[in-house]
């Protein structure tokens, strides 16, 4: 028997258990968790971007109104037209409309010249175009506004982008449906893969758990060891994966020439949020699965 330890015991820095050093699972787990979070983050961000583009187009279409007022032939300046004056008065008196602006001739030609080309002849002068915005807070009845405008300026047309809006709405619905279905399948697969891989890894740890148990380790120590181990691997893996997902998305944004700065400004915080949520979800899933499997193994044993 080697000589007894010296009687005075100094508290030494607590040596870690190190039961996982160099395990195959220590290499596999972070890679798999990383791949899963990469896929989830990138997919959610791409879907969000698609939906966001449709949504913002819809918001613009929703908020923008155009009134086209036929002008009397022969007037040197369309702004003097009495029908236009009356239409403007009506619009300015209506609560819920903002940014009322009459377009100059060049802008008018640009906006409606193409579609009206067929109808414009020598006899028919270019109509006046008023663009205006709708404030989202006040509900303005389009029918009522049309009625009032018709009385003030007969023949005027109020365009509320109805066709475009319904097309965009349909597109949003289809897109959202497809995205939801894909997202459901994706999350199912990612979670199932995470849970399965971790369960499998923990099954392989059964001999280690047994040795720990027989060395007098209480349950909570064993559980803490294993969850801590998986927690660190998951932090590493899911962190790298989510980061790569974000990076990929940013790269695609920066490369795409048509990147709208407003869109980027809104999506950038969302990107961080999504990455953090998915990262947290995967880490949580990994840790909870580990706890569950290790507890199960412990319960099986005497």
């Amino acid at each position, binding site marked *: 028997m*080697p000589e007894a330890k010296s009687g005075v015991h100094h508290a030494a820095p607590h040596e870690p258990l190190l039961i996982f050093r160099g395990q195959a699972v220590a290499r596999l787990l972070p890679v798999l968790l990383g791949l899963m979070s990469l896929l989830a983050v990138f997919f959610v961000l791409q879907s969000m971007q698609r939906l966001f583009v449709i949504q913002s187009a819809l918001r613009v279409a929703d908020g923008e109104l155009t009134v086209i007022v036929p002008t009397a032939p022969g007037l040197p300046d369309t702004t003097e037209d009495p029908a236009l004056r009356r239409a403007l008065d009506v619009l300015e008196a209506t609560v819920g409309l903002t940014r009322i602006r009459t377009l100059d001739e060049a802008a008018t030609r640009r906006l409606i010249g193409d579609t009206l080309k067929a109808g414009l002849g020598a006899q028919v002068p270019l109509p006046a175009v008023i663009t205006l915005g709708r404030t989202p807070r006040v509900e303005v009845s389009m029918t009522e506004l049309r009625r009032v405008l018709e009385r003030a300026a007969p023949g005027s047309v109020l365009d509320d982008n109805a066709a475009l809006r319904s097309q965009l709405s349909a597109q949003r619905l289809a897109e959202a449906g497809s995205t939801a279905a894909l997202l459901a399948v994706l999350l199912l697969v990612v979670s199932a893969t995470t849970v399965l891989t971790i369960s499998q890894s923990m099954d392989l740890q059964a001999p280690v758990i047994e040795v*720990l148990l*027989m060395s007098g380790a209480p349950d909570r*120590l064993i559980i803490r060891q294993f969850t801590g181990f998986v927690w660190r691997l998951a932090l590493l893996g899911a962190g790298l994966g989510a980061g790569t997902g974000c990076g990929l998305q940013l790269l695609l944004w920066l490369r795409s020439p048509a990147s709208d700065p407003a869109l980027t400004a809104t999506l950038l915080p969302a990107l961080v949020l999504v990455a953090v949520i998915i990262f947290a979800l995967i880490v949580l899933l990994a840790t909870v699965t580990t706890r569950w499997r290790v507890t199960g193994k412990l319960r099986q044993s005497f």
Partner: protein
Amino acid sequence: MDQISVDFPARLGVLQDVSLRVPSGGFRFVTGASGAGKTTLLRLMFLGIQPSQGRLEVFGRDTRKLSRDQKALVRSRLGVVFQDFRLIDHLSVYDNVALPLRVSGKARKGDRDYVHELLHWVGLGEHADVRPEQLSGGQKQRVAIARAVINRPNLLLADEPTGNVDDGIGIKLMRLLEELNKLGTTVVVATHSAALLERFDYPAIHLEGGRVKAAGQSGAAP
């Protein structure tokens, strides 16, 4: 232990009506043919299995009344040498032996030297940093013994601790167990080595087909 029986789901009557006591501070051999139930008896003692019937006391406490944490406490006072060693493959010899110290949370400044000293004692001073897979059979067995005694257990259960080493080393290892015993540790050694039984004159519990055929003098429970 009173009238203990052990049934495995797949096999009934592996141990039948076994009653015995190992006095605290005692030294006992467990003998019997292969498959007689020696390992099973030791597994009972380190709370590795539950008796299907009967009453089992370890350190004077009825094991059926222990919570899981109390069982862990009991196990932390035990040292076990498994017949198949049960070393952790991916840890070095040093880490394998130091494991019970780390588990107990009683880390001391002298631990490092103590582990090395013990490894040296069992003849593995130069193998501290290798993995168990690079050891010979007898070397693995000695690592298992070092791990079992590192924590100064109150009760040491050793299953064939000398099955894979030559007689010289075997006797040295038995002397290690004897010294521990002299310091107050209760020792139970399962073996079928007739040579060992001849050389070391301690009482033997002889098992035959799951029943005790001849027990040495019994005293107080361990």
